[in-house]
């Protein structure tokens, strides 16, 4: 074995292609993905952001990525590998990479890290997130207008604050239009299983909902909604192709703008740690075209979007009650970011129970 390895190593050395640090001056910007870069959902959205970054700053930087990295010790190894291979700025794009990022960052003080959707920072670790809930609020309003039965079905992945926040924003938006609006929640306990997501959509429709919204990654629920002739919302990317007559709008994750902004700061030497939580106004999420709805609903949606962008409307503004009817926010009071990021309770109108 050893001989063989030595032989191989020599061949490599002779051919002069040993993967030693290249003499290029381009800065290396690197990404760690939890899924496959073509998963059609979360990871793909990040990869599109990476491609935009390359397009924008390709003359100054090159990008590298590792995909399908399991959370835990594997993530630590993968991040360390990137740090050692000369990456200057590393984006770790899943919540589960948080502690691994912090640990490796402590070892490599000269490398900058950006962790998505977490809450731990360090001098060389920033966090970034997107106010997806702003989009969900708009969707809730549309749902309340479009639903004849006043009940929407919500296919959820896992009970984490991000998802709970989304459910609440949707309900608050819907109830702003129709105070009696209700939603039914099904937890698929997966991000990614088209069959199961389809089954969940079918179950919800069979129980009488006439709008489907999802917080899972595949287009399967959209396909089912199309088949059954009801309306639905897309998730993470524009899913209009899966339901040309079905999709009302979709929340599209558009990370590219943020990646470009931070990379520029990194190149300028002005990068410093921060916890950024951008929203519709910053372009970190965008709404897919409002389709398959009457003009007045579309106008309402556009108006809401504009108000959110201008800061005039904040979805989590009182008066709001918690699920059991106890008061949460007083008239005019808005929820602070810390509460939202750790959200673990439902607001009034959700027909489900959260595991505590």
């Amino acid at each position, binding site marked *: 074995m050893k001989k063989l390895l030595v032989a191989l190593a020599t061949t490599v050395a002779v051919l002069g292609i040993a993967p030693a640090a290249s003499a290029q001056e381009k800065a290396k910007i690197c990404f760690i993905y939890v899924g*496959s870069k*073509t*998963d*059609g959902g979360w990871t793909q959205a990040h990869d599109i952001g990476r491609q935009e970054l390359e397009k924008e700053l390709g003359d100054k930087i090159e990008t590298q990525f590792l995909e399908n990295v399991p959370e835990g010790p594997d993530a630590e190894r993968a991040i360390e590998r990137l740090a050692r291979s000369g990456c200057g700025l590393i984006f770790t794009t899943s919540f589960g990479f948080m502690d691994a990022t912090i640990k490796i960052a402590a070892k490599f003080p000269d490398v900058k890290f950006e962790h998505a959707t977490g809450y731990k920072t360090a001098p060389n670790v920033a966090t970034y997130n997107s106010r997806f809930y702003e989009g969900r609020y708009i969707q809730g309003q549309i749902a309340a207008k479009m639903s004849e039965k006043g009940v929407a*079905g919500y296919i959820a992945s896992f*009970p984490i604050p991000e998802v709970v926040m989304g459910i609440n924003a949707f309900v608050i938006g819907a109830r702003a239009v129709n105070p009696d609006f209700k939603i*039914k*929640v*099904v*937890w698929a*306990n*997966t991000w*990614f*299983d*088209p*069959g*199961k*997501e*389809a*089954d*969940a959509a*079918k*179950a*919800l429709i*069979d*129980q009488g*909902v006439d709008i489907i919204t999802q917080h899972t990654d*595949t*287009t*399967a629920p959209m*396909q089912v909604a199309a*088949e059954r002739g009801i309306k639905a919302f897309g998730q993470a990317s524009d899913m209009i*192709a*899966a339901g040309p007559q079905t999709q009302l709008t979709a929340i599209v994750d558009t990370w590219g703008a943020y990646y470009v902004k931070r990379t520029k700061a990194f190149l300028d030497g002005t990068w410093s740690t921060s916890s950024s939580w951008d929203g519709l106004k910053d372009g970190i999420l965008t709404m897919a075209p409002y389709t398959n709805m009457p003009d007045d609903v579309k106008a309402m949606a556009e108006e809401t979007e504009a108000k959110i962008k201008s800061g005039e409307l904040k979805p989590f503004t009182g008066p709001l009650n918690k699920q059991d009817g106890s008061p949460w926010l007083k008239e005019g009071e808005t929820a602070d970011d810390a509460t939202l990021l750790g959200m673990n309770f439902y607001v009034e109108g959700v*027909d*489900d*129970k959260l*595991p505590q």
Partner: protein
Amino acid sequence: MGIVEAILFSVITAATPLVLAALGELVAERSGVLNLGVEGMMIMGAVCAFAATQLIGSPYAGILAGIAAGAVFSLLFGFLTLTLVANQVATGLALTLLGLGVSGMLGESFLGMQGIKLQPIAIPLLSKIPVVGPLLFRQDAIFYASVAILVGVHLFLFKSRAGLKLRAVGDSHSSAHALGVNVIRTRYLAVLFGGACAGLAGAQLSLVYTPQWVENMSAGRGWIALALVVFASWRPWRVVAGGYLFGAVSISQLHAQAFGIGIPSQFLTALPYIATIVVLILISHNRRMTLINTPASLGKPFVPDR
């Protein structure tokens, strides 16, 4: 459609791939070959079925491609385990690994494409029967195929000479060999059939269940199919019962959630697995019945003496 019919309809769609793959694996195991690569063959079937449908434009071409892909992939397993007598358990697991990788590579250019759904075929007269008609006689070709395969496998195994030989090979390959049965050829054919069925099950996933291609879309269904064969103690009808039981519990738990019964979803999601165990305990008290149906040579390599 009433809610009960609606639920049953979802159950059939969810159970068909399990039943198909399990019936195929059952035949392979009856011949004494344990192929743990069902998941890999299934995902190959799914990607090839989807690709062929896109390229040729007909889901029926997709079905054929799915069957072929599963079969070809199973031949790889057969070559290793039957010709080169490699360990069956490890080879099967490696096949699953390879299948997930190869399907991901093949499918890359088909991601995000809109699938073409295999349309149901209404059977004249029968489809008019209330309740049963729409459920059983307004289905797609793959469902009908699963029924035909069930009946076929049952008749073949228990009513035909060839089936008797196959079971003999699975029970004692040396005796079968002594009686002049070509053990290796029988096993090759059984493995091939298992692969074809797994491929067809994969085709159902990407043409009927969710007409799209995404990586890893089989999401562990091959493993459930394997468990179902054991659940059925190697009897075809029980495979079907098990598959539909599993499907029914899976769908019902989603309905229970949508209904809002307030039990943590993790417990509800675990129900199909627990239910399968409990039912297996209830039906396996009769040790002799189980032994009779268990292929005694399962997983054991055979090399003819010369």
